[in-house]
């Protein structure tokens, strides 16, 4: 298992953003669904070691991120795309990805190839020398995805990765996710159920800091038969599970 979470909690003052989550994730693509404020981003940030948990147990890639050494080791094999990624406008696409490759301690001899591969995988190969300030929103998002995958992570965490991508790019991105998921654990937090349906083998639904559903997209869709509201089976399953959790 690449991710082992037991009773994980994160509090901000009196608010429990994550309230006792249990998860076991191995290689594959894992979707994380939930309404705004459900705790998805907080959970993702804890898995990205950007934020320590308030309580509970968290093991990533077989290590406890509480210690500095293990945390560094995890981070070398980790990729993270936050919901609102930042960037240095004067950097070119290649420099931006190279910067993160260097920070992630990708071996120097492999950096050039790794950067080229990552940039190609997000279809920015022809813009690799363009400065980030000249890119559109969607291209910036793709450049941010490239920095997340440049070190071929074993654990890839993506928060709203398809925001700003056009449908064609979204389709290609889902294919990329499936490809990455053959070897690594990919966790995708998203509002778009069709992303989950197309790319994820497993899905969890969070509400108010708790996981209220964990299973396959098909089983989530089945929850909505005759119950939920929505235009697709997965949407109906989503609303049905939420309604049940809140009742």
């Amino acid at each position, binding site marked *: 298992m690449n991710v082992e979470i037991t009773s994980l909690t994160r509090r901000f003052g009196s608010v429990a953003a994550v309230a006792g989550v249990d998860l076991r994730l191995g290689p594959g693509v894992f979707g994380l669904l939930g309404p705004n404020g459900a705790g998805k981003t907080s959970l993702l940030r804890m898995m990205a070691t950007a934020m320590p948990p308030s309580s509970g147990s968290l093991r990533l890639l077989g290590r406890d991120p509480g210690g500095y050494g293990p945390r560094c080791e995890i981070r070398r094999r980790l990729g993270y795309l936050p919901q609102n990624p*930042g*960037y*240095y*406008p004067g950097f070119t696409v290649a420099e931006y990805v190279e910067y993160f490759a260097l920070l992630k301690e990708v071996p120097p001899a492999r950096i050039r190839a790794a950067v080229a591969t990552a940039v190609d995988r997000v279809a920015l190969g022809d813009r690799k020398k363009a400065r*980030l*300030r000249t890119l559109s929103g969607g291209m910036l998002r793709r450049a941010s995805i490239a920095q997340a995958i440049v070190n071929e992570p074993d654990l890839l965490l993506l928060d709203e990765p398809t925001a700003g991508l056009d449908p064609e790019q979204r389709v290609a991105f889902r294919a990329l996710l499936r490809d990455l998921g053959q070897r690594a654990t990919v966790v995708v937090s998203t509002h778009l159920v069709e992303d989950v349906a197309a790319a994820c083998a497993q899905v969890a639904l969070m509400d108010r800091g708790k996981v209220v559903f964990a299973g396959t997209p098909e089983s989530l869709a089945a929850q909505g038969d005759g119950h939920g509201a929505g235009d697709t089976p997965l949407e109906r399953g989503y609303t049905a599970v939420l309604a049940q959790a809140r009742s």
Partner: protein
Amino acid sequence: MTGARLARVAGGGAAPGTAHAGAAPVTWVRLVRLYAAGRRVPVAVLAMAACAAGLRIALLWHWDAYGALQLPLIFETAAAASVVATTADPFGEPERVAGRWLPFLRLAATAALTAAAIALLVAAGTGGHLAGGTLDVLRNVAGITGIGLLCAAALGAGLSWTVPTGYLIVAVYALYTQWHPPALSTPWLWPARPPHDLGGGLCAALAFAAGLAVITVRGARQRAGEAD
């Protein structure tokens, strides 16, 4: 929902197009408050107050001729830099295209903050041995703020401090040359001119007017990826 029901829900029962006339002053106050909050005006006022307090404390001592003229100039520049820092635009295009009030808000905020900076420093200097007096403070703060506003329009609010702080060094040196000739004396270095000097006053006023006009119309230059 039907269209009529939606209208009732949205309008709270009022007929479409009816203005909430009684709420207009409150709306203006809220708009100004929110604008000020977005520009970190309270922090700027705090910084200016700190400059005034520093000046007041500094005036408790008796300085030689160098200190008496150069120290107030340092506080004046810091206050001007605080004013200019509020020109940063955290919202970007959505704000720029949302209606017609933004230039007026920029004008009012910048002018009010400049006036506040001057007032705070003058108050701090009252009763102390503030060399140059009120006219000096007025001219220096307004002029250096103008330089900073022009910088903000050209380089962005984040880098608007570069030229005003460089100007401070040149002005301090120009003051020094009053005792160590040859004097560096041009109306464009107004801090080195006597408070009643017309040329220096005009140059400072011109800088302030130009900066205020540019900021009012165009705002600070938007830099991509800049956070607040």
